[in-house]
């Protein structure tokens, strides 16, 4: 068995050290070693987006990132999107707009949307559909997800 590496990183603003084997993915580290099960495993090969996290602000499929690669970066997971007392506007609009059914893809959508709206706060429908096309949802037909994001984007226009 290969020796474990010690990795120092930042997750949701907190410094985190963990030990990982060279083969372990960031998704495995988050869900297994660190007990952060918000990122979901839908395919484990980068096709579905349910495990999306932000690395230095950019959305990535955490199943395609190795644990040993995250030394020194800043990671944001779905657990770090809301603050202690209230939901992020994206989360709030997803609940209010019935933009989830089974909810398994929802963490990935929330995280990818956060990255999109940080970059383009007033994203239009086509931009939303393009930027989130890497996140699969089988329940909603996407309609209410797009509308919820549009709602957040329109609020940002004031």
């Amino acid at each position, binding site marked *: 068995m290969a020796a474990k590496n010690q990795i120092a990183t930042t997750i949701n603003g907190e410094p985190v050290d963990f030990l990982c084997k060279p083969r372990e993915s960031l998704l495995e580290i988050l869900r297994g070693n660190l007990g952060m099960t918000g990122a979901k495993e*839908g395919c484990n090969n980068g096709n579905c987006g349910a495990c999306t996290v932000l690395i230095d602000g950019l959305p990535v499929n955490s199943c395609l990132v190795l644990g040993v690669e995250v030394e020194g970066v800043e990671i944001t997971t779905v*657990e770090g999107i809301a603050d202690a007392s209230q939901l992020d506007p994206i989360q709030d609009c997803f609940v209010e707009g*019935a933009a989830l059914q*089974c909810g*398994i893809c929802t963490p990935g959508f929330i995280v990818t949307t956060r990255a999109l709206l940080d970059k383009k706060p007033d994203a239009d429908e086509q931009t939303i559909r393009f930027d989130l096309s890497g996140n699969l*949802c089988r329940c909603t037909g996407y*309609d209410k997800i797009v509308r919820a994001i549009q709602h957040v984007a329109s609020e940002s226009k004031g």
Partner: protein
Amino acid sequence: MSTSTNGKYRVLGTRPRRHDGTDKVTGKAVYSNDVQLPGLLAGFVLRSPHAHARIISIDTSEAEATAGVHAVVTGKDFPNVANKIADLGEGSINLSNLSDNVMAKTKVLYKGHPVAAVAAVDVHVAEEAAGKIKVEYEKLDSVTWVLDAMKDDAPLLHEDVFTDHMGEKDETPSNTPTHLHFEKGNIEEGFAQADVVIEREFRTATVHQGYIEPHSSTADWNENGRLHVWTSTQGAFTARQQTAEILQIPISKVVVTPCEIGGGFGGKIAVYGEPVAAILSKLSGRPVKIQMTRAEVFESTGPTPGSFMRVKMGATSDGTLVAGEAWLAYDAGAYPGGMIGPGCMCVFSCYDIEHAVVDGYDVCLNKPHTKAYRAPGATQVAFAAEQVVDEIAEQLGICKLKIRQLNAASEGTRRVDGPVYPPVGFVECLAAAEASDHWNTPLEGENVGRGIAAGFWFGCGLKSAVSLMVNHDGTVNLTEGSPDIGGTRTSIAMQLAEVLGIEAADVVPRVADTDSVGYTDVTGGSRVTFATGLAAYEAGIDLQTQMKKRAAGLWECAEDDISIDQGTFSAGEKKAGFKELAQELFKEGEPLVARASVAPDCATNSFGLHLVDLKVDPETGKATILRYTAIQDAGKAIHPSYVEGQMQGGAVQGIGWALNEEYFYGDDDTMDNASFLDYRIPTMLDVPMIDTIIVEVANPDHPYGVRGVGETPIVPPPGAIANAMAVAAGTRIYELPMSPPKVWKAMTDNS
């Protein structure tokens, strides 16, 4: 803000936030793969690489000797299960076949069929150890297309399967366990009356439900012989029954906790990893989790049948459909019992046709055992029948909406399989289509087309139980047994809130394990908001009855003097709302609890009609959906947002089925595209907004008129898209999926 769809109700028809919403947008909701237990081991299942083979021997010695491995199982570790049929609520299953599907004993029948499993300290160790298991196979000829499997010289999957023709059994074994036959009227007479007759052949590919959450099951078999299973299931009680039967232990020795479920659509009713994890747990003395990979989900669970269909319909010159004949062969996969029954019942279910005959064949072949997928069996036949209806309209020069209105099934129409419809809302759906902005907006441009198609699903009642506990403050905890896949905690809580005169937020709904709530059938058959909602309504009435009795003591009046209006109790001067009275009664005496259980024996009959505009690119054959409207009779939309969500989600699954999705099989009859990259479900970029029109024709079997809406929306899309494609491409396509190469070829051949 919540807005009511009508003035009659206070809570129904509004759009409150779902109770589990916050936990699901913050990542806190616990799905099956999120379960963590002290000492948890990981299981890995070794699967057949062959489509059809006899197992000669399995040598697990090297795997067992691997460091980190705690247990190894093969078919030999499973008890013998009698050839017994178990009723699982929605559909029945042969337990011996089920056990064999969970772990092969003597033969493997499809690529991905489990042959052994390993429990180890982590999944990588388990996978490596599984790779050291030596399985010797004798490869057998295989077959993956229904018509090939029906041939006399086809490779035979089961020596003990003899075709049952409505009670009469053949004497030589075959791959066709069941031949169904239904008829009404006199088919020769019917076609003799017809001025136009259209007969076509259709083929549809095997498709998968495609839920985003892979199956995951954790089992802990303790030292007292009690087994606890945490799993992703549409029905905890059916999972318990199947697990107990496969392991041959009493049901009382098993408790199943249904975790949050990441989609099911009919594919999470049968058990797969549950009994395997259980035996690994028993052998190792540790809890064991088996999580499937995406490839395993595609290759070893679900899919829904591919089919061959021949449909012939006749009409008189005024457009009256007078005769319908269908010959259907559906792929059951590796074991008997696919979706042919509902296919037969649904092929002509939308129309009042005097003379009809349907023959249906359930066909075994070397694919995974097929399962329900949202209105199982109905989408295939609608793809066929709705095209034939369109072609009849074309030949007669009748409007395609008009011909459906002329022949629409309504109260009193008898379906070919016997039942006569109670009040149903198909005529109202057609009227809504006629009045819709979509229908009345002309579609212009080159290579564009508009199509419509109808759909029907029975919906069922089955068994549900709920219990209520009233808190000090008059809020109510509602315990139910229906796993919540799309917001049903809230649609059930809303019905209770309506009865009691409180807010949806005053109800605390909880989906309980099998030790903690009365028996409840699966979340399926569009039944939860209907039947579990009915149980919640009845439990509310039970609670009010008890409260009325105790209020009579408190208020020193006769029980009959107390009336209840919108949840408020009153007797002369005395008056109290539900919460106020509940608080009083708690101070005065014993805590308030109530319960109800129901088993409505009826179909809920939901009809729908979809309209689609599309554009096809003649250079590539790729179709783009320009506009889509789904219309459906919900009976009563309890939470309109989630009703719309069902309609939109079903429509998009249907769009995927129509245009893209299919299992590809190689020369060795094994699946070639077991990933979301190669089995491509619609992405956000592939579809437009899905407009919805909810029609409400009350279901007489429910106090609020609920029909249940989950399944019907997947039925019309392939037919509607085929009808639009016929206009846009200038040629009809009789095969699913209507993928770009097929459309391009059809257009090229046509020009």
